[in-house]
């Protein structure tokens, strides 16, 4: 105990622990009937930490390359102690992270938490969400199995249909004209080096902004939250940990009962098997592109769809700057309806895509 006290004193002299403790004691979180949504940011962060840890463990065995990727994952799953668990956790956690991040993003949108002065937090958060999707897309190919190979082919084909820059984008993504070992190396580089670097910077900005500005209180709830603010430490932190443990439990059950399958090794010369679909979080886009007519206006249907999605994603990123009412602290219904329409659109086409598989 004495050792602990002296160690704490040593640290206090150097990093002002007491100051940090005082800050933690002082910090509060608004409490109201929408407080539940605050926790999804923490859940997303928790799942990201799991992704990093399990990803590092997978890196010990994974060997990128046409002739080694699939074999190394098979070795990991069948011969390495708990290798199957690591891969399953990594795959399930990736999917849950996309889900948690989406819930977090839409809850922020519907509670108008992006309004002034939190525009930077929103923009960094949306970019983190897009990067999470990019993580999913690049990671999907790494086991080099049949489904991943053809889904990547379809996915990069769509990227290649973007007007003007499509050809260059396709070349950049694939490292050539076709999906080959060069694409695998490239995706591996994106997945473990480029994206994590960008993600870390954006995450730092996002978290610093959250800490600096605190949690946003929904418009119309400011008064009630002033009455009963919740201490950040220990109340909010402990609740966060409680939810994290529940998520960890769900993750363990999913990993054991539904282990992520490896499938058949990719064969670039084989015909595409029936039922090739992207991951569930890209399904709505895939379904919309499938249903578009061959020509819309003067553009090819697919090009039109990609353009519309691109513009919509860009507008979504800068939406705080358009919502003038919320900036003034006024309730505005238009953007709420936009948010609900987007959610309904995504759910409808995801379900449709699922049903039409």
């Amino acid at each position, binding site marked *: 105990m004495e050792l602990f006290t002296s160690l704490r004193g040593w640290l206090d002299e150097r990093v002002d622990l007491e100051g940090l403790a005082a800050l933690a004691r002082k910090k509060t979180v608004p409490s109201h009937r929408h407080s539940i949504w605050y926790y999804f940011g923490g859940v997303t962060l928790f799942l990201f930490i799991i992704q990093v840890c399990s990803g590092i463990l997978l890196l010990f065995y994974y060997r990128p390359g046409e002739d080694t990727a699939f074999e190394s994952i*098979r070795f990991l799953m069948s011969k390495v102690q708990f290798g*199957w668990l690591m891969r399953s956790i990594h795959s399930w956690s990736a999917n849950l992270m996309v889900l948690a991040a989406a819930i977090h993003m839409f809850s922020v949108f519907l509670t108008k938490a992006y309004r002034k002065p939190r525009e930077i937090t929103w923009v960094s958060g949306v970019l983190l969400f897009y990067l999470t999707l990019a993580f999913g897309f690049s990671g999907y190919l790494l086991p080099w199995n049949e489904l991943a190979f053809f889904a990547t082919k379809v996915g990069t084909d769509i990227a290649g249909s973007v007007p003007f820059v499509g050809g260059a984008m396709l070349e950049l993504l694939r490292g050539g004209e076709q999906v080959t070992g060069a694409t695998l190396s490239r995706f591996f580089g994106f997945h473990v080096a480029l994206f994590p670097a960008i993600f870390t910077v954006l995450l730092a900005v996002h978290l610093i902004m959250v800490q600096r500005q605190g949690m946003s209180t929904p418009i119309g709830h400011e008064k009630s939250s002033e009455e009963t603010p919740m201490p950040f430490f220990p109340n909010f932190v*402990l609740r966060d940990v*409680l939810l994290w*443990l529940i998520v960890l439990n769900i993750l*363990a*059950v999913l990993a*054991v009962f539904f*282990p992520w*399958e490896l499938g058949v090794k990719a064969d670039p010369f084989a015909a595409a098997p029936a039922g090739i679909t992207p991951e569930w979080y890209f399904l709505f886009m895939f379904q919309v592109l499938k249903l578009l007519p061959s020509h819309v206006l003067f553009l090819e249907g697919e090009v039109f769809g990609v353009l519309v999605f691109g513009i919509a994603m860009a507008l979504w990123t800068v939406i705080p700057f358009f919502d003038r009412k919320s900036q003034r602290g006024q309730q505005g219904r238009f953007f709420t309806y936009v948010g609900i329409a987007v959610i309904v659109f995504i759910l409808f086409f995801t379900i449709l895509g699922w049903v039409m598989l």
Partner: protein
Amino acid sequence: MKYLSLLFSGIMLCSFVGTAAAQDRQDECYACHASMEDDASQAFATDVHRNGGLTCASCHGGDASLDDMDEGMSSARGFKGVPAGKAISATCGGCHDDKERMGALGFDGTTGQLTALRNSAHSRGSGATASPLMECTHCHGAHGIRPARDPASRVSRRNVVALCSSCHDNPRYMQQYNPSLPTDQLAKYRTSVHGQRNARGDSRAAACPDCHMAHEIRPASAASSSVNAMNIPMTCGKCHGDAKYMEPYGIPTNQLALFRGSVHGKSLLEKRDVSAPSCNDCHGNHGAAPPNVESIGNVCGTCHALNAELFRASRHAVEFEKAGYPECETCHGNHDVRPATAELLALGAGSLCGSCHSTENAPEGFRAAKVMHVLLDSLRNTVALAERRIDDAEQKGMEIEDVRFSLRDARQARLQARTAVHAFSVEKFSEVLDPGLLIARQALIDAEAANDDYYFRRSGLAIATLIITVTVILLFLYIRRIEQQQRSRKQAVS
């Protein structure tokens, strides 16, 4: 053009109907040409068509009843001269492809020859004009046509072989159309039982059209060809399965039925595996003859080379030769070859080895058969059990593909061991089989381990879930307690 065709058809029809009247009417064309003693009219004198009442005008157009040559051979009377190219067969097909017209002429035989010819290899386009290679007259002639059943006909069984060979026996000629096609069919045919009987004047012995068809001749590679591997059993069986037709020869007619039930027949006819042997693979094509006792091993050894090699080096080869037994056929039969299962080595009633070897008369062979049977059975059962356990593990979501892959070597060893049986030596047999048995046993151990691992995972999950759940409950209670304390403090302060 349409009207010309109609006019032509009308004239043709008018020429053919009312046969009694036509026969009465004089064929002025023929009368004139016969007086000139030209080749065409001399040949036409015995032509089946003339005997049937047709005139020169039936094919050449014009009006044969007029003695005025200019008018009878005028275009106004439908004269078209000597048909050339496709028009030759079109002229013949005008009747022979029309069942009703042939019926009206009192002919109840086969029709559709032109359609069949146009679907045949002989109608393949040739040269810049892409005109068919052959027309009716190439085989049947133009004016001295006789029915195929007439021994003097060019296409009778006696003459048709020479007719076909006039092209197919000529390498330089055939080179123009199909350089890869052999031109030794006639030479081989003359060595065959069919050819020898044909040469002796047996009009029932198979000649070229019996196997290749008369008009719809297609290359053996075509699925619809009568000599395609899949169709050969039925083509041969047409005669060899017909007890009445084969009666004069005194040979069995159950070959096709036996072949259908054999391992070869099932592979070829049911699994559509063209690598399986058909009749011609053992008996030959044009030189078809039953293999004799000495050559059976060579015939089977064409495909089963290793089996034949091991057998010839074995003790059985010597004993079989002494006894005059045919090599492979003695154990496996000929047309009804059964799948070579381990049961052939069994020693019970109806078994193969047991039919000669017993504890009394050949104890050494009896023991060898017993050991090989037990070992083969053991490998088969171990592989089957390992497969079941691998299936179980995969159904549970375990990654065990490498173990399944390793079983391929065990199956391969079993296949090789079945071949090694033909050495009839337990030592040589074990050299092949034992490694497979080891692999299968290891696969079974790995599959069992994967199944056990599945239950270990479940237990591990249950423990981990329990610990996490208890922690969650404790944490929840702790949060509730500190929040109650906070509320109490707040109330005390206020």
